[in-house]
């Protein structure tokens, strides 16, 4: 019995300790963001790898999600003769919820893992030590550019995803469900409010921050050897995904529970 309680206690302490460590890491990252030097070259290349090269993944995810959403809402709406809501619900569902969350999860899988693997490998092969001996702060050189790039580019990805997702709904609506093309678009535009879209973009920025932060955090703490890097990569993706879902709930509560 005491052993059982002790193990719960230990696990709780471990979780609290890692929450503390992550918070500290986030604080340090923001602190370093505000103080020079800033590595532009690293920042721009991070924008490319995190933002630009994630476009296909995010676009495809949004396209299929928008299409499936249209089918579901049509089927559900038909139960109480409300098929006409398809365009507006697809749009709202996409921009407020599915665009940021699914986009965020896809980017987490793609980017948190690659950042953790890259930085973890640098750690294991002593490249991080080498940076320090060359008077370059690894937090400034590696973490800040990636976190900033993700925070700025993921909202853009979300916006692109929103548009493509709505297009997916539109294509299915028009080709499969018999909507009038002009009316579908009109309906979408009429119902969407600015805050619907903006809230999704804010979520995207928060998710981007989480994704890159987790990649860097676990990469920097990677254990020795290939196994250490493997563990760091896995932990980064899991932590980023769970934190995205948790943050999504909290933000939704904050934005929309009146």
């Amino acid at each position, binding site marked *: 019995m005491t052993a059982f309680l002790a193990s719960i206690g230990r696990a709780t302490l471990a979780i609290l300790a890692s929450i503390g460590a992550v918070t500290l890491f986030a604080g340090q990252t923001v602190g370093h963001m505000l103080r020079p030097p800033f590595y532009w070259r690293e920042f721009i290349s991070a924008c490319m790898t995190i933002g630009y090269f994630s476009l296909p993944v995010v676009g495809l995810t949004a396209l299929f999600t928008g299409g499936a959403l249209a089918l579901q809402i049509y089927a559900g709406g038909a139960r109480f003769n409300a098929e006409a809501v398809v365009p507006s619900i697809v749009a709202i569902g996409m921009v407020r919820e599915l665009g940021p969350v699914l986009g965020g999860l896809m980017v987490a899988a793609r980017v948190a893992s690659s950042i953790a693997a890259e930085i973890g*490998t*640098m750690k294991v*092969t*002593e*490249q991080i*030590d*080498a*940076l*320090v*001996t*060359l*008077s*370059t702060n690894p937090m400034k050189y590696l973490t800040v550019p990636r976190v900033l790039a993700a925070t700025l580019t993921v909202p853009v990805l979300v916006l692109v995803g929103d548009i493509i997702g709505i297009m997916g709904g539109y294509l299915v609506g028009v080709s499969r469900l018999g909507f009038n093309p002009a009316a579908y678009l009109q309906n979408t535009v009429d119902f969407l409010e600015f805050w619907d879209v903006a809230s999704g973009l804010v979520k995207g920025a928060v998710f981007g921050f989480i994704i890159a932060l987790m990649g860097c955090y676990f990469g920097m703490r990677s254990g020795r050897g290939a196994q250490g890097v493997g563990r760091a990569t896995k932990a980064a993706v899991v932590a980023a995904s769970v934190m995205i879902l948790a943050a999504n709930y909290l933000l939704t509560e904050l934005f929309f529970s009146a």
Partner: protein
Amino acid sequence: MIRLSNVHKAFGNNHVLRGVDLHIPKGESMVIIGGSGTGKSVTLKAILGLVTPDVGTITVADKDISKGDRDALLSRFGMLFQGGALFDSLTVWQNVAFRLTQTGMDKARARDIAIEKLRRVGLKPDVADRFPAELSGGMQKRVGLARAIAANPEIIFFDEPTTGLDPIMAGVINDLIREIVVEMGATAMTITHDMSSVRAIADRVAMLHDGVIKWTGTVVEMDSTQDPHVDQFIHGRSTGPIEAVR
């Protein structure tokens, strides 16, 4: 120049350093020998502040390295890591010139210096634009060496500079290290297992064993010493006070 006093370091239950005392005077070339896994690399990292000792003090030019401006201190150092530790995302010349470009030197000039340093470690200018992953192990080692000396540091650490090199290239590197100490007046600490390197590079030799400096002396003293550890090590005997399994 560099002084370690009673330095201890443990990783979990593994007590690697158990009271290292060592002094390296300015302008001297010190070679550290000792069995694999005895903590030679850890010792160098402790001086650079990459590993924090559990107990003991390390001073560089009479200043405690754990206090004061770390970047200012590190700007006086050059380090060749055992594994090279080249940045894979940068080309060879960008690696070599890293410190120069970080401190604001213009690209063309930094590149020229990088190419000159590459030449000194026996690499042709055409490797400058390649990436580290495209080079052989020995070439990577030499790029690491070029990076370590690029900013003409006062204090240079070489962790196994000649492992993985052919005998001729090893000779070139030994000469280079000697030259840097003699001509530039740098203080050098070199870790090596290669006895011909020891003889070529060392002013003094220190032997690390069981977490302490077991013996120090000049190369001549090393050859005539009665110390059983040193004797076993330099003659590569499998029997003696140093266990073969560790």
